């Protein structure tokens, strides 16, 4: 008997007027994996993210999580099922201190404030932001804001975490910290799907890589397989990309 995949995306199609942003995209994610989605700008990565997390309704196709179909669920219902996400442009609550931002996420699983605060502090210790818990988002660096957004997502206690370009615009040191954080998140048993442009990070963290181009999936495989694929090089990486084997 075939095992039910953890996350199953089955022929998902999303069009905006005449533009086919996602064209019958198929993929599965197994529990405990880190899967990266790469591709040039406009390939449909964020659209796919939005379809899976309930921000867009696909025109056709099916999405199931742990065997339960959730294609037409609202975003908040999908979050309750255990799928959390972050945004390409950081989304945090600007008039709340960092701790309260995370508490708001934690309140998904608690009705009382006190246990939610305890959970939020635990998450902030995990993500390394605990010392900045009293700061407002305006007082945080870009890297810390991204970290805060990840903390908010983690506070909803997800089984699957989807990160949309959480490494864009970071310095080398910050990039290192984010890679380490992602690995740490996997270690506590959370599955990850990440959209990422920073190939160095993709190579290091991914178990599998899915490549999109013009709304279609053109390739899927291990990072090593993907970077030597002719089509991927032409569409995205560029002829001059040299693979540095890890």
């Amino acid at each position, binding site marked *: 008997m075939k095992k039910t995949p953890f996350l199953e995306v089955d022929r998902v199609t999303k069009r905006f007027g005449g533009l086919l942003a996602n064209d019958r995209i198929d993929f599965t994610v197994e529990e405990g994996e880190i899967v990266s989605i790469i591709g040039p700008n406009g390939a449909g990565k964020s659209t796919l993210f939005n379809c899976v997390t309930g921000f867009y309704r696909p025109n056709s196709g099916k999405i199931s999580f742990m065997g339960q179909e959730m294609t037409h669920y609202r975003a*908040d219902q999908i979050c309750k099922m255990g799928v959390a*996400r972050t*945004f390409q442009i950081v*989304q945090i609550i600007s008039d709340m201190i960092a701790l309260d931002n995370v508490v*708001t996420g934690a*309140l998904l699983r608690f009705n009382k*404030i006190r246990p939610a605060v305890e959970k939020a502090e635990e998450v902030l210790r995990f993500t390394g932001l605990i010392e900045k818990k009293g700061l407002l988002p305006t007082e945080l660096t870009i890297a810390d804001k991204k970290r805060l957004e990840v903390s908010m997502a983690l506070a909803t206690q997800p089984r699957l975490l989807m990160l949309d370009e959480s490494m864009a615009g970071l310095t080398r040191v910050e990039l290192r910290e984010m890679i380490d954080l992602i690995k740490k998140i996997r270690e506590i048993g959370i599955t990850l799907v990440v959209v990422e442009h920073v190939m160095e990070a993709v190579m290091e963290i991914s178990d599998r890589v899915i490549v999109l181009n013009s709304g279609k999936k053109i390739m899927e495989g291990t990072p090593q397989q993907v970077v030597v694929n002719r089509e991927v090089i032409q569409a995205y990486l560029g002829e001059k990309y040299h693979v540095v084997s890890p």
Partner: protein
Amino acid sequence: MQNLSFKQISSGIIVLILLILFPFAFPKPFPQHVMILVFMFGMTGVAWNIMGGYAGMFSFGQVAFFGIGAYTSSFLLITYHINPWLGLVVGGLIAALVGAAIGYPCSNLRGHYFAIASIAFGEIVRTHFNNWKLIGAAEGMTLPMLSESFKNFMFHSSKLPYYYIILAFLILSLGVCHFVATSKMGYYFRAIKESHDVAKVLGIHVVAYRLIAIMISAFLTAMAGTFYAQYVLYLDPESVLILPISVQIVLIAMLGGASSVMGPVIGAAILMPVSEITRVLLGHKGTGVDMMIYGALITLISVYQPKGVWGLFSNIGKRAK
């Protein structure tokens, strides 16, 4: 979003004792009348704040809830001799239901768009009531004279009972607002105010929580409406359903400080005496002078202290530490 400190509770109790003693220090009707208006509009400001200050729905249609409250209890009293206290509850429930019914199709409206829709809502209710024969249309309704008692919610010989009733209503509203602000709801409202996307991604059912905010706000505003009807004993669309009342409610909350529990009360304490005193001093010639003073105050406060007068107080408090 912390619980009240000992200092806050003790200063609150002192202010409350002063307010309870106020009518004995100022036994004339006029100061009591001004204070009644301060409490009543303070209450509507607190109710607006739950919706506007916390959940980010800038309503310029609060007068519809106020009018629905006033009309429901009065209509039930005149036509079916139903006790106004029961009418108050029924009016609150109807206002909450109407609020939910109009809030649902407006679920995706934010910012200016919500404000415009809420103006339209208020104006539709006013036009409708202006032509609705059953409730007196433009002529309005005069409440029957009942004997003076707490049970009848009617007092003729003194304003004192009204003073204490509306003070109790205000305290109830502050209690509700404090509860909202410090509970899960308060966190969720603020997330929704920031952006619907951030709320959804944290698992918040945006539509449901917005409707809850509208319904709480509508119920409290309608309570103030019933109080107004029982206090003035006459109502018509021109006195309880016009847009300037909605605007005044927003100004009170903004001036005092939106998204702080006490802010709107401070706003009412500044604005209501200004409007009543100019009205008494200048009579009809002075129509609009209060609005000019409001305008100047609002401009000053939004330029120098966007968090409202309450924000000014808490800043001074912080500096003093």
